[in-house]
């Protein structure tokens, strides 16, 4: 139980540090030590948040989440399936590896104009950019997960007459699940970043575009309200994946 106690104490400490930092910020802004226009006090941001939420933030968050989840789904599912196939078959791995090495490092957001040419100015162009961003980390992790599975488990399933479908169902998929989920975690964080970045630079709707507009009109409380929203979305996504990891992979013991 000691580990649980010290874990709780550490979380209390982290919360204390956060409160202290926010308090310092509040004080510095009110005393004019930092420019209140660029750094409005946290209390002002918190007061602004529900107002902005009712006016326009809520519907824009919905739009941003639609783009984000659309991209994660369209890019993540094929990424995982391709990744498993590549990790399972050494031959496929040899063929696909140069392509992955060539395309993976390209910042996919730069391809957004090309997607506009392909899809037109609509949601699909945005979703495609997010999807392509998500695709690679999902693929690379799933592939590494499948490759790391001990050959023994394949042999066990084959020894009872299991064919390809059985190997996928009983070995490849469960065996790479921990890596798939950690890949989804990386992919989701990158996907959120790209969604907001596209909105910020190139669209008129979504959390990112609200933040850009806020900055142009010097409504910095709105800008920080946007930052707060993104942060909350990020925390929720990461906590959900952590929860899934504990639920779906109980054989992975930690601590």
């Amino acid at each position: 139980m000691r580990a649980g106690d010290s874990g709780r104490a550490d979380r209390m400490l982290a919360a204390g540090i956060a409160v202290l930092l926010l308090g310092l910020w509040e004080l510095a802004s009110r005393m004019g030590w930092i420019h209140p226009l660029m750094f409005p006090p946290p209390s002002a941001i918190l007061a602004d948040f529900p107002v902005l939420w009712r006016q326009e933030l809520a519907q824009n968050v919905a739009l941003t989440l639609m783009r984000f989840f659309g991209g994660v789904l369209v890019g993540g599912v094929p990424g995982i399936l391709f990744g498993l196939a590549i990790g399972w078959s050494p031959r496929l791995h040899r063929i696909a590896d140069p392509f992955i090495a060539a395309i993976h490092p390209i910042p996919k957001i730069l391809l957004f104009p090309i997607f506009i040419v392909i899809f037109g100015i609509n949601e699909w162009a945005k979703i495609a950019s997010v999807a392509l961003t998500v695709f690679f980390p999902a693929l690379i992790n799933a592939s590494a997960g499948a490759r790391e599975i001990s050959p023994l488990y394949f042999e066990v399933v084959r020894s009872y007459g299991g064919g390809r479908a059985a190997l996928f169902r009983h070995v490849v998929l469960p065996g790479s699940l921990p890596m798939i989920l950690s890949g989804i975690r990386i992919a989701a964080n990158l996907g959120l970043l790209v969604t907001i970045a596209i909105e910020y630079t190139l669209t008129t709707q979504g959390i990112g575009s609200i933040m850009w507009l806020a900055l142009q009109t010097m409504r910095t409380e709105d800008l920080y309200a946007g930052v707060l929203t993104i942060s909350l979305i990020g925390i929720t996504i990461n906590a959900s994946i952590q929860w899934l990891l504990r639920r779906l992979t109980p054989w992975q013991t930690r601590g």
Partner: protein
Amino acid sequence: MSFALRQITKDYGRGASQTTALAGVSFAARGAEFVSIVGPSGCGKTTLLKIVAGLIEPTSGEVTFDETATPGKLRTSLVFQDHGLLPWYDVLDNVALGLRLQHVDLAVARERARHFIVHVGLERFLHHHPHQLSIGMRQRVGIARAFVADPEILLLDEPFGSLDAQTKLVLQQELLHIWQEHRKLVVHVTHDLEEAILLSDRIVVMSGRPGRIREELTVPFARPRHLDILGTAAAGEIRHRIWDILEEEVRQSLWVPE
């Protein structure tokens, strides 16, 4: 049930790096006999077992199985050296795995697995994952999985090799007990002479690499057997005869790099 190996040869690698694991191995087993294969490390015992299991193709020679086998019944199941339990399944699903791979309905497979697990006294561990079990317990589950699949032939690849001496004795007794209830043809690979004598009807002694059969011995003790038989003069004589052959082979195999 019966099967026969005829002139089985297995080469690994090509050209200069080619090694021959098995060189013209022939033997047959039938009925519900318990056959043990003993030999120095690297003599191809495991390779031989995996050829019977259909996991490895021999370079030449053939394996034939009795045609009177029950249709639809699993031909072989293999108990692996390192238990081979899937880490992502609990004990119940690991024991049910063989049946599920035979396309038995999930609920039926689990029910039969649960029954067997309870029967061998492991019900406390039904929903434990392998990493939560001791090494001995894992191998008990591995053995349960192989029996539940109800194969024509049970193959055991040094199942007790990684256990401490006392746990080994307990599990050998348990194996004998379960086998007494579910009699079937067993081919068992070991380097432990006492284990081979305790468990087997027949012992096949192999040479060092490349593996050849040096001798076959019959173990005459009545069943059910108890550990005490190992103290008898007859057991001592069998052990002596096997060791006469093996000692020279083991000394030679010490000079062969892995």
